[in-house]
């Protein structure tokens, strides 16, 4: 990708050569490999254990989400977006609902905005927890996985109480919310915040200063901020490379401008920095939740939207900061009840393009670490 001179690993025929006499060994990882987070297939070109280059083969989970959108009304398409990044379904829903709201020129009432922010940030924490558990598991630490899943469970319980679903929640509606916050929602969220704060310290205790963790992550999968921007990489990966870009601050959506939080950045752009950035992001999310849960205003939860939505002819691009990076929706309306075209800019898909660059001249074991640190969800990559 960055070096046009290297031929594609797919072109290599594999003659009857062994490790010694050939400089290159082509190895296929996946799509059923335990460490590729679903059905990613990676074709590695190796010299010994050193990676000369790799190519991702995707599409094993393709369901045609974008095409489906063209045959559904705006409301009917809403649940489908949950199935893209299924570990951060609420963020997907937020992005879609806000994009359509923008197209319809309506705005969700403040109370709905607050509850949306709380749920989205909770979902960000859940997504990061799942990332941390699986990433640590890939590097060989089993225990963090169980810790993070224990605490993620509390978040899922709140979701379940709120809307009845745990994973693909379909929590938001175009124009606001369907459900009023249940009784005790605020105290549940407050309890969760005080519950999870020491738990994040617990994860860090296991990993942050662990010598082996440091050796496995420092200087691994380094990518510079310039390369990140060139490849369109966003989210924690971009921020760990030192670029202070967070859509919540840069192009505020929902009511994020009302909240006080910081954007963590790293310097080295290696796996360790990405880990630290995500850990701080979890804490910042808690900070946002604390502020939001104290100030939920009274009022309606649904804006006035027509029963049959017919947005005016035009197009809109709206992006939000999903846990994995910039999640954008590009919607073209032809004035009918169904969108003419929906294009999703999934952060995982774009971030995955950096894998080849980050893995060059690293070892095979680092590929696993880098795939983990990119935090991809194949449902979103393939759509």
């Amino acid at each position, binding site marked *: 990708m960055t070096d046009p001179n290297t031929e594609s690993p797919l072109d290599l025929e594999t003659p*009857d050569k*062994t490790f*010694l006499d050939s400089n290159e060994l082509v190895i296929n990882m996946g799509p059923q490999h335990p460490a590729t987070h679903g059905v990613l297939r990676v074709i590695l070109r190796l010299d010994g254990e050193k990676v000369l280059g790799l190519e991702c083969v995707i599409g094993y989970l393709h369901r045609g989400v974008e095409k489906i959108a063209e045959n559904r009304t705006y409301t009917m398409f809403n649940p489908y977006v949950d199935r893209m990044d299924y570990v951060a379904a609420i963020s997907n829903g937020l992005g879609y609902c806000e994009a359509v709201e923008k197209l319809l020129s309506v705005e969700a009432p403040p109370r709905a905005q607050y509850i949306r922010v709380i749920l989205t940030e909770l979902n960000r924490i859940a997504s990061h927890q799942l990332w941390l558990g699986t990433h640590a598991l890939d590097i060989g630490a089993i225990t963090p996985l169980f810790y993070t899943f224990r605490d993620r469970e509390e978040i899922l319980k709140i979701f379940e109480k709120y809307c009845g679903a745990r994973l693909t929640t379909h929590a938001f509606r175009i124009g606001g919310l369907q459900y009023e916050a249940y009784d005790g929602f605020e105290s549940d969220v407050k309890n969760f915040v005080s519950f999870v704060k020491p738990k994040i310290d617990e994860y860090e205790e296991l990993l942050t200063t662990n010598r082996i963790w440091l050796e496995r992550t420092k200087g691994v999968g380094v990518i510079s901020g310039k390369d990140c921007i060139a490849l369109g990489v966003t989210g924690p990966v971009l921020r760990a490379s030192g670029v202070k870009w967070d859509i919540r601050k840069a192009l505020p959506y929902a009511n994020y401008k009302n909240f006080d939080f910081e954007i963590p950045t790293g310097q080295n752009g290696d796996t360790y920095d990405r880990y630290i950035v995500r850990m701080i992001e979890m804490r910042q999310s808690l900070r946002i939740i604390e502020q939001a849960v104290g100030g939920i205003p009274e009022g309606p939860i649904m804006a006035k939207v027509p029963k049959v939505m017919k947005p005016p002819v035009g197009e809109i691009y709206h992006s939000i900061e999903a846990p994995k990076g910039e999640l954008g929706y590009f919607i073209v309306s032809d004035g009918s009840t169904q969108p003419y075209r929906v294009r999703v800019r999934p952060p995982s898909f774009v971030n995955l393009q950096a894998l080849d660059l980050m893995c060059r001249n690293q070892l095979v074991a680092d590929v696993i670490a880098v795939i983990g640190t990119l935090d991809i969800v194949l449902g979103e990559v393939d759509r």
Partner: protein
Amino acid sequence: MNPSVATNPPVATPFFFYGLAAVMVIGGILVITRKNAVHSALALITTLLAQAALYLMLYAPFVAGVQIILYAGGIMVLFLFVIMLISIERASKERQFNKQCLVGIAAAAALGGLLIAVFTTTSKGQMMFAEGPTSYVESQNTQAVAGFLFDRSTGMYMFSFEIASLLLLVAIIGAVVMAKKRI
């Protein structure tokens, strides 16, 4: 702690000797006849282990230990490594014996004949190397070997030992120079 041989004579010596000797000879034959080099290596390992057992019967436990740890555990692992690194798929399908194999077998037969001839002419029906009745102090074997190699007063092989370490150093460097792709 110091069992003398007199109270504890070795049991069933002929049984173990012939058994181990058979294992060794069969192993040796397999080494030189197998197509697949890995099979040869496994046969050689069997031979080496049987030989270590024979060393134990010869009251040389330290040599037996060195045989196991160095030969079976070290050198043969190296052999297996190399066999796996180079392709043997093709080699095992090709002709196994070289052009001069008949000549080679003839030469080996001649050598065998020579050995037999030497044996028959020198022994003349007498028992060669008749041993006197002695007790072998097995429990002090390691200490005695160490005495030869390291001791100030009895260490007559100390210099040779140092030379051997130099030889190993040269071998390490040589092997690295030979086998490394880019130095």
